[in-house]
């Protein structure tokens, strides 16, 4: 175990939608992550604290929380980089309903993925030859640039438009739609373009770029959404989708 440097003052959200921040004192250690801090509170101070995590290494996207006002993946956010004057305020993700303490209901987030036609639609069967995709083709490069989303919900929590417009699909779902739109093997693009052009789709985005600023994978959902705006506008003007 790392050497204890000093103490951290930590405020954690307790309760559901109605609740309050409760203060805890946690030993500060070298290379300590925000998730380490939350885990310390649950294991050593209050075992009733609820939060969500799985992999602890930035792959699963389960552990996002609001840390000192900004949504972050807590397993790979070092305390030293985000603590302000030795203090951390950790709450549930914004724009989602709190279930208890630091755990939010992610259902609307994933339902919007479905609405944006975020599932791959195969164009071939297993009897067909494997599609040959050049890695340096423009479409594949566009898909690759946005494909590393881990569904952590940080962009969704950071987005002003999600906060203002309950119908808005959000940066993650639209980014997923953009990667599939650029996947030559996918056969569902007309329905996908129609879905992201509907009310609450890509055109609701104001390009504030909070998603891009805070995405832990350094993706640029704003650019993906701009691509969707161009593609849906072209499809609409050609009569391929309805307005």
């Amino acid at each position, binding site marked *: 175990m790392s050497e204890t440097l000093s103490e951290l003052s930590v405020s954690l959200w307790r309760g559901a939608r109605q609740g309050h921040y409760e203060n805890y004192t946690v030993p500060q250690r070298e290379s300590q992550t925000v998730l380490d801090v939350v885990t310390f509170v649950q294991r050593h101070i209050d075992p009733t604290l609820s939060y969500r995590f799985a992999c602890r290494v930035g792959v699963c996207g389960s552990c996002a929380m609001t840390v000192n006002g900004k949504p972050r993946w807590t397993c790979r956010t070092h305390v030293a980089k985000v603590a302000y004057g030795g203090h951390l305020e950790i709450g549930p993700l914004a724009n989602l309903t709190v279930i208890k303490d630091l755990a939010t209901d992610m259902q609307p987030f994933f339902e919007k993925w479905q609405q944006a036609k975020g599932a791959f639609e195969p164009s071939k069967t297993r009897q067909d030859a494997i599609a040959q995709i050049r890695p340096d083709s423009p479409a594949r490069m566009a898909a690759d640039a946005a494909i590393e989303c881990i569904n952590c919900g940080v962009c969704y929590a950071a987005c002003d438009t999600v906060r*203002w417009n309950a119908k808005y699909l959000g940066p993650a779902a639209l980014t997923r739609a953009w990667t599939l739109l650029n996947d030559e093997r996918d056969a569902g693009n007309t329905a996908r373009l129609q879905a992201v052009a*509907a*009310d609450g789709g890509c*055109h609701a985005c104001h390009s504030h770029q909070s998603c891009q600023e805070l995405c832990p994978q350094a993706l640029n959902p704003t650019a993906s959404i701009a691509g969707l*705006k161009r593609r849906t*506008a072209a499809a*609409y003007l050609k009569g391929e*989708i*309805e*307005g």
Partner: protein
Amino acid sequence: MRLYIWQRATAALLLPLILVHLAVIFYATRHGMTAADILSRTRGSIAWASYYGLFVAIVSIHASIGVRNILIEWSPVTERRAGRCAIGFGLLLFVLGVRAVAAVVLS
């Protein structure tokens, strides 16, 4: 989608119109033109009537779509009511604008 295309298309048209409008303002003020000087050039002019008539029409469409979006996002009104308010706002802008254009081009 349809409203998005209308708003973007009107924005694209507005850009050159606004630049010319600003140039006209600078020209008129830099040359110390009086109201009488300006009216002598605009009255009876089909060109100025067409230019500012088009300007007013495009602004009314562009602004009303924007107001609809603002109302939907920032106020508790329903989409239907936001649409009605936006149409009302657009018509008001159009009437006010046409009155202003008429005042400087009709003799």
